[in-house]
């Protein structure tokens, strides 16, 4: 009788311990190739989606593109080569970040130019406004004078 209880207890303990097994198990590692695919896919646009990178899209095309990236990585191509491969097929449209030459050039020049222009204009405006003498300050009304006096007395 006692032995049965003991056996049962051991079994239960073993069962309980087995629940903790995963805690000791080696954690799952991310496939470094997967990570590389995703990092490249972040810079590419899923061309059938609205403004979504290939990395984040569930569209079939995005899955295919990720597969192509993977295959090319396995074939030993570099990141730049893979991006060029897609640009050759889809044009600049496939780049999430517009290029700094060709059609994308204006996008990168205009913001700093705009900032400089507006800043200069404001500077000129401020200078001009601070040179024109402000109209003379109106004399204090009797009420205001009384308030100033009251405030001074309070302070003393």
């Amino acid at each position, binding site marked *: 009788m006692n032995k049965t209880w003991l056996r049962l207890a051991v079994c239960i303990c073993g069962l309980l311990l087995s629940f903790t097994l*995963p805690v000791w198990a080696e954690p799952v590692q991310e496939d470094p190739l997967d990570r590389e695919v995703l990092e490249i896919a972040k810079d590419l646009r899923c061309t059938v989606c609205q403004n979504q990178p290939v990395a984040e899209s569930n569209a079939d095309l995005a899955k295919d593109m990720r597969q192509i990236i993977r295959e090319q990585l396995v074939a030993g191509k570099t990141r730049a080569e893979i991006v060029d491969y897609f640009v050759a097929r889809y044009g600049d449209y*496939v780049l999430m970040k517009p290029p700094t030459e060709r059609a994308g050039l204006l996008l990168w020049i205009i*913001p700093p130019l705009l900032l400089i222009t507006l800043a200069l204009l*404001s500077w000129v405006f401020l200078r001009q406004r601070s040179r024109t003498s402000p109209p003379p300050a109106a004399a204090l009304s009797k009420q205001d004078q009384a*308030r100033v*006096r009251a405030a001074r007395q309070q302070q003393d």
Partner: protein
Amino acid sequence: MFLSGFEFNLVELGHFAAYLAFAVALVMALAPAAAHFFHRPELARVGVNASIAVFVLTTLGGLAMIHAFVTDNFSVQYVATNSNSKLPLFYKVSALWGGHEGSLYLWVWVLTLYTVVVGLHGRKHYPDRLPTILAVQGALMVGFFGLILFLSNPFLRLFPMPPDGRDLNPLLQDPGMVFHPPMLYLGYVGFSVPFAFAMAALITRWKSEYWIAHIRRWALIAWGFLTTGIILGGWWAYYELGWGGYWAWDPVENASFMPWLVGTALVHSITVQERRRMLHAWNIFLVITAFSLSLLGTFLVRSGVLSSVHAFAVDPGRGAYILAFMTVVLTVSFSIFLARGRYQEAEEGMTSMLSRESMFVWNNVVFTVAAACVLLGTLYPLALEALSGDKITVGAPYFNAVMVPIFLAALLLMAVAPLVPWRKANPERLRSRLLVPVALGLTAGVVMLVAAWPLHWTGPVAAALIAFVSGTIFTDYARAVRQRRVQHPGELLPRSLARTLLGNRRHYGGMIVHLGIIAIAIGLTGSGLFRLEKSVVMAPGEVVEIGGERLRFDGVRSFQRDNYFTVQGQFTLLDRGVVVLPERRRYPVQEMPTTESGIHTTIWRDVYVVIADPVGEGNQTKWGVHVYVNPLIQWIWGGGVIALFGLGVTLTSRRRTARDAVAATAAAS
């Protein structure tokens, strides 16, 4: 559901009400002109009653639509397209703004709401200008009702009646999406009120001191709603879209962000006009721009131009109407501005280059450039495609590269400007006041640099500026409290703290808004620069480690709920014993999969789990799992709440200051 004939056709009553509203809006728009033309001044007074009538009628129309949704009246085409008998009641109501037609109806409904509030409020405060203001609002309503009734009508019926509806877009079946559009529209349309005031001011040569306080208040209210709408949108994207982010610089998001940026410039520079009687014309320009950008946002989102310029060119209908309407509004308002703007002149000059008013000018430079850059990035691909046929993408990396430096510049101004007094700053005093905040900022920057090396240059700069701004705000407040305690010796500290804050609600309300923005900046920096992500394939029982968190996959369950099937993954955060339950849902009516991320939140970080596709078959099935650790992301939503609270504090200030002035005068005499 079986409907009686009356209930079944109730929607026609709403349809009729909408037509009547259109007619009444037309009367409202023409009333002042008619009064002038026929020399019958009493005609102008119909405006207020008309605004009430048009609101009641539009509400009738809206309620009729909601009734049609709730009673599953699929004879209404819009209901059949955007609802389903199995859709939960909550979403049936919100499905009203789930599609094109209904969104536009909500737009105009909100417009009538604002108009009736202005009408009722204005009767007492600005009766002589009210007809013109209401006429501008009425003209806007006519424009939108025209679009709704003739090109985008939600009341149209369908024959034969389908047995069931095509269901609401599953992505929109989320609480965030229920409140996001109304808030956004309350913001967009809110800018129509300052716009109407500005037009009235130009047309009737209204003097600045009479309209400035009204425009300021309305602009702040619109800004608050727009802020709420944008933050709710980010929150929704974060919880619902399942890629761990909240803002993708999507054109639709940019559409709401542009009026926000200009609105932010406006609520700052309008203070200069109020306090120093300058920048009148510039403020009117900003008001017109803010509202125009709201219209542009509506155009971009509602015309379909974003998906493809060519699709738009083939079937322009609605888009062409909004574009034409926008052109008319812009042309008319800027013509009036150019013709009459010179009557709204500055009455004072700048005293010094280093003053609060000059700081506000720099603020305006920063926010105007920010808005212009977003506009550029949003419209450039469309213009390029239309003009040359070339297609390029302007995605998040571009906007981050351009906008982050601009935001950092805004933070720098935010740190310095509140310490600079009006008119003329004393450089020595300013330097001494900046000492502690600058030291704090530099320390924070260096600490960040050392602790998190290597990192992007924006990290330490953002940390330094965040600490700098907080240092400014708190030392400024501490100085004011100390001053008060000198004047009121023996006062309890909490009382001093509260009285100081409440004594200048406008200033401290603004500072609380700034603190909210700082909290948002902390959240953006944390989640933007230090996000961790892992994409793994897991079998039940396996554990993944990320950022010191250990997450165990316990398996999946599938079951059915109201109107969808779901596969729910179960994960346990081992160090906390917390379970997170990400889902993949499939809505059979639309055959559309959606993801519901499983999120465990603390104030320091979110663990964000998305369950992706199964790999393999049968017992050996493994699941693709994306895990993200987003540091400090909750600060973004929290910051939004703080900012809105601060805005509320600011908005309570007006009456009080007026009463105080009277009390002070009485005490002095």
